[in-house]
């Protein structure tokens, strides 16, 4: 469905250090340097996938999204989405996609949301019957009911984001690009947005590509992640595989009835100890977690056990470090 091959893009940016003298100097001779936003990026995405596109700020995420949504022409490389070349067939192509830029609104601030929706209906030339069907579905699943008659600027961030997502789905696109859809949202709204994305992917077979910094988004939504750093793809694949590859340690925290001295274990280091609680970091390459727990329960009177895997964030950081991003 989406095939990207060898994309490269270079930008020119002005450089300037701080200070007054420097400001005057660069006024007369500005310096430019080249930034390789993308270098030889290739991947392909099948219909119905949800792909998490992650990477640190400035890694090239939004450049890729821009190329895929037809608003930026790459220097080199090919891209074919549903048989279109996005930048060449832009007007025809964009009918089939929906784009949500999390930090910018596509709704008109001063009029009720409904009015914005109707305008979008006219922009995308959606048939009245289809419009009613999508609107009903969106209203119901995103719980928009009363919000629709409120001017956008009076909505809370969570309400607004739900409307943004609805707005980009009114024309029933086959592909949905979400650029940081959960940024700044509270826990409840985040969950609502995630559930909706899952639903729309399952029911309507919408292919979803989302960028985010929130790894919970990725964990609940994406079966596949593509990680980019310094314009290059660092990892493309399953989230669990990534874990297996990079998770080397787990932490085990046990509560127990009083014990007077710390207990040392093989292949696990003691992180903290008190007379009723201890935390171990287990090297899972050497010894299984269950083995550790059984040893502990044999030696102590355990009251509670908790096992924590390394948070996905730290795995990502490891990966960035490995590639020196």
């Amino acid at each position: 469905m989406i095939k990207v091959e060898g994309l490269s893009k270079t930008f020119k940016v002005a450089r300037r250090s701080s200070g007054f003298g420097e400001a005057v100097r660069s006024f007369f001779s500005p310096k430019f340097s080249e930034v390789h936003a993308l270098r030889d990026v290739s991947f392909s995405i099948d219909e119905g996938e949800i792909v998490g596109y992650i990477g640190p700020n400035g890694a090239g995420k939004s450049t890729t999204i821009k190329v895929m949504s037809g608003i930026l022409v790459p220097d080199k490389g090919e891209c074919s989405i549903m048989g279109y070349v996005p930048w060449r067939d832009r007007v025809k192509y964009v009918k089939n996609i929906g784009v949500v830029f999390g930090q910018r609104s596509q709704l008109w601030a001063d009029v009720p949301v409904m009015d914005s929706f109707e305008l979008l209906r006219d922009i995308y030339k959606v048939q009245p019957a289809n419009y009613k069907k999508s609107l009903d579905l969106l209203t119901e699943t995103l719980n928009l009911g009363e919000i629709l008659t409120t001017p956008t600027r009076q909505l809370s961030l969570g309400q607004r984001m739900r409307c943004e997502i609805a707005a980009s789905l009114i024309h029933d696109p086959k592909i949905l690009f979400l650029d940081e859809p959960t940024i700044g949202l509270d826990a409840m709204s985040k969950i609502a947005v995630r559930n909706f994305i899952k639903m729309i992917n399952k029911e309507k077979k919408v292919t979803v590509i989302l960028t985010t910094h929130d790894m919970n988004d990725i964990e609940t939504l994406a079966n596949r992640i593509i990680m980019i750093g310094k314009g290059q793809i660092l990892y493309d694949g399953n989230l669990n595989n990534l874990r297996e590859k990079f998770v080397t340690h787990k932490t085990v925290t046990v509560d127990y009835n009083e014990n007077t001295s710390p207990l040392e274990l093989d292949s696990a280091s003691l992180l903290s100890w008190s007379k009723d609680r201890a935390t171990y970091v287990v090297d899972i390459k050497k010894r299984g977690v269950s083995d550790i727990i059984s040893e502990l329960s044999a030696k102590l009177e355990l009251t509670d056990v908790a096992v924590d895997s390394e948070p996905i964030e730290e795995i990502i950081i490891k990966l960035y470090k490995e590639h020196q991003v």
Partner: protein
Amino acid sequence: MKPYLAIFNLRMINGLQYRIAALAGVATQFVWGFMYIMIYEAFYHGFTGTQTISLEQLATYIWLQQAFFFFVLLWLKDNEIFDSITSGSIAYELCRPCGIYGFWFAKLIAHRLSGTLLRCMPILVIGFFLPIPYRLSLPPNFLTFILFLVTLLLGLIVVISLSMIVYVSVFVTMSPIGSFLIFSVVGEFFSGLMMPVPLMPIWLQNIVYILPFRLSGDLPFRVYSGNISTNDAIIGILTQILWIIGLIALGKVLLTKMLKRVVVQGG
């Protein structure tokens, strides 16, 4: 004094960043200057009597207007200040260890100064080499030049103390655009930007002389071109100082009043 200097410095650096903008500004000012002089040339061409200002003096007047455009024009607005008032984030500025009046004042001066420093030189230099009647002439003597500099700088302070009152008024209106537009249109007319003050009918000139607007541009430019005598120039300087004292006092009183209201309302 230090925080004021810091904001001044920051604003200057910020202004210097935009060299293409400055170039575009110079070009714009240049075209406008030419256009005005051409129109006045046409007016003078078929006119046989004498006017209170000669075409050569007028050309100088117009080039100075263009070169020091950023000192004179009133619609130059600092959106950050407006936004901080309307959005209520002014409350944060209250946390700073320096007075808001002085802080804004420094910021506005820096804005106008950086804009002018970048633009005035090319216009002045080219103006000096243009053929008569388009030429920007030199001041008749050194004293007038000194008087010009003094009136020009005092004029800048007049403009800023005037606009401070407009900024304060936003606390009441909460929507700057409309009132700002009316203020700048009317003010620029009375400051001689739309038509030179000496060419206005006498009754209108009398109104202009009562108002402070002409002190920013009209006074220094006419001092420079020799259209105003030394004595009148000194009277002009005294008038400027009186207005500055009055306007700053008024602005400070109003601002304190408004800030009290903000604090009471809790921002």
